[in-house]
């Protein structure tokens, strides 16, 4: 789903207009909605910090999805892996006491382990029994949500709290604020670090090459003598770990205690991974866009009385607009009512196996950019 920058701008503008029109239904003028969204996303230091926090989480989720895809695995279990990441991080934070310099990375690692373990279940099911991971990871999301709900009412509940929530993290486990006057936490640094690391691994290491080969053509990789099963398993686990770190970041950088509903927009991670074209840097750019949208729309809800769900509506609009804009040449062809699409694959592409796109591949559509 790679998309060129000018087209991305067109799509974003169209989506904003759609949402502004939706705001009309509650009697708010489209222009003030747009203005509020923009100023609410980047207008003040505080807003900028919130945008960056959202972007950091979405970056991790997008990376998680994109990394799985690179290894030919469709992991859409980011919600469950994120939640188990929060649990892993919380356990490390509350069970050991260390100096901050050690405690922070230990908790993040706890998050990574939690996420990876949650991904291990569908991964093993796929390896051993061939169960379709798209469905199993989704199921694991629902199970994860229920599990955290149970833990917060039982074993992990703060005895002194009325609500189902955990104890507050010790200060040594909290990610510091990196921008004074805002809530921007060091999770942003972690996310950027992960982007650079994953980008480097995929581009410059032998392991990354193996992984990408498996993602592009598992059969060919098998003939080349790669251990495809073990590479897929690694892709699955790293993908889960990245979502788990996202959970740890939210817990340690924003909330400081585990509550319900910490991640309800997880599926935007899928979109970030896809719009980012499966590259680490692309995920970062797309995540900043969606992070700004979320923060701005939240502001619009506070100041203008637009229903909170405007956020969800806008995100849906953005995705659909992106899809349409990415396929603009095709749409023109459809409008002209002639059947031939301008970007029909050449015969050479077919023999390379390009058109034989498995439903998992994001390479469908790259030719359009």
């Amino acid at each position: 789903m790679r998309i060129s920058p000018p087209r991305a701008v067109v799509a974003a503008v169209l989506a904003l207009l759609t949402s502004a029109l939706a705001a009309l239904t509650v009697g708010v003028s489209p222009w003030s909605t747009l203005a509020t969204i923009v100023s609410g996303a980047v207008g003040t230091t505080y807003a900028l910090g919130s945008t960056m926090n959202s972007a950091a989480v979405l970056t991790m989720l997008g990376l998680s999805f994109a990394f799985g895809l690179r290894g030919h695995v469709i992991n859409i279990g980011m919600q469950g892996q994120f939640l188990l990441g929060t649990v892993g991080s919380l356990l490390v934070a509350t069970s050991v006491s260390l100096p901050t310099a050690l405690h922070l990375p230990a908790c993040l690692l706890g998050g990574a382990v939690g996420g990876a373990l949650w991904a291990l279940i569908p991964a093993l099911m796929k390896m051993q029994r061939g169960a379709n991971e798209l469905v199993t990871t989704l199921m694991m999301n629902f199970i994860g949500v229920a599990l955290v709900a149970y833990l917060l009412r039982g074993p992990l509940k703060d005895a002194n709290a009325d609500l189902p929530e955990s104890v507050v993290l010790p200060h040594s486990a909290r990610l510091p604020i990196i921008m004074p006057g805002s809530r921007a936490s060091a999770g942003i640094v972690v996310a950027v670090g992960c982007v650079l690391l994953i980008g480097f691994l995929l581009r410059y290491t032998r392991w990354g090459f193996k992984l990408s080969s498996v993602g592009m053509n598992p059969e060919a990789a098998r003939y080349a003598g790669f251990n495809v099963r073990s590479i897929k398993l690694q892709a699955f686990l790293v993908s889960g770990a990245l979502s788990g770190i996202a959970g740890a970041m939210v817990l340690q950088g924003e909330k400081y205690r585990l509550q319900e509903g910490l991640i309800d927009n997880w599926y935007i991670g899928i979109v970030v991974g896809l719009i980012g074209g499966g590259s680490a840097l692309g995920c970062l750019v797309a995540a900043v866009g969606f992070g700004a949208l979320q923060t701005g729309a939240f502001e619009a809800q506070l100041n203008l009385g637009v229903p909170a769900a405007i956020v969800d509506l806008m995100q849906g609009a953005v995705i659909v607009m992106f899809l349409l804009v990415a396929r603009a040449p095709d749409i023109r062809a459809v409008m002209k009512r002639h059947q031939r699409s301008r970007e029909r694959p050449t015969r050479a592409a077919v023999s390379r196996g390009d058109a034989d796109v498995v439903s998992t591949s994001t390479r469908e559509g790259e030719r359009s950019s």
Partner: protein
Amino acid sequence: MNDVSTILVSAIALTTPLLLAAMGGLLSERAGVFALALEGYMLVGAFLAVIVARDTNAYIGAIAGGIGGMLLAWGFAELSIRLRINQVTAAIGLITLASGATTFFNDVILGKTGTPYQRAPSLPRLEIPLLSDIPVIGQALFAQNILVYIAYGVAAFLAYYLTKSHSGMRLSSVGEAPRVAETRGIPVSTTRNGAVLVSGLLAGLGGAMLTLGILSSFTAGVSGGRGFIALAAIVVGGWRPLSVLFATLMFGTADALQLWMNARGMDVPPEILGMFPYVLAMVALCLFVSHRAPGALGVPFHRELRG
């Protein structure tokens, strides 16, 4: 009514939304189009059914729900069949749009001070004389609302259609080997469009069953992953209509059991009980692994390509 027949009645009712969605999804997947967007169709159907039923009656609401699911399916068909956008991407986009739009307009219609859910009239139960008096199973099978009968009718029809009828064979060939089907003169894109539209209609009715037949209300995200469970049922049932029917019955019964145990106040926490249908789906996916997926499932079709 004893416990067994109580559970049976609710099991059949809870199976119905799953069954309608799964049958729609089955038709779509047999034609080679991945049915991940079922969840979105159900949500739109559930929402529109309630909105329309509030001002008219439950029957017109159910029809509106079916049409609503069909509208979203039309969008999916345009994106995935005509524009050949990756089907997983297109489905995720439309699910997001459906959940956003239903939540948003639910808020708008209720106003900001309203209660967070919409009350709606419910579909009346239609007792079939004599048959509904059969002990244990009578009430469960023959005293349900119209959508339940429709769902089982659709399942029976599809069992015949996909395995015995000429037209069903043609549809399956489109999902199995579109290139071959095209050369035999079967219009691939048209067939797929039709299958996707029908899947939207059925899943939309499934959503209507959820809000008008079971809950009598709409809340944000009311479908609660049932579209995905229906997807699991299709895989577990190995893309065969009767097996898919049994898979949905299994999941529906699991749902009914956990609700019943909840109501009875068992020692198990409700959150753990709530996992039951999903855990069952995972186990079933491992036990009944089927490699009988349609050959061209999820692969966009280029007519002018001569492979």
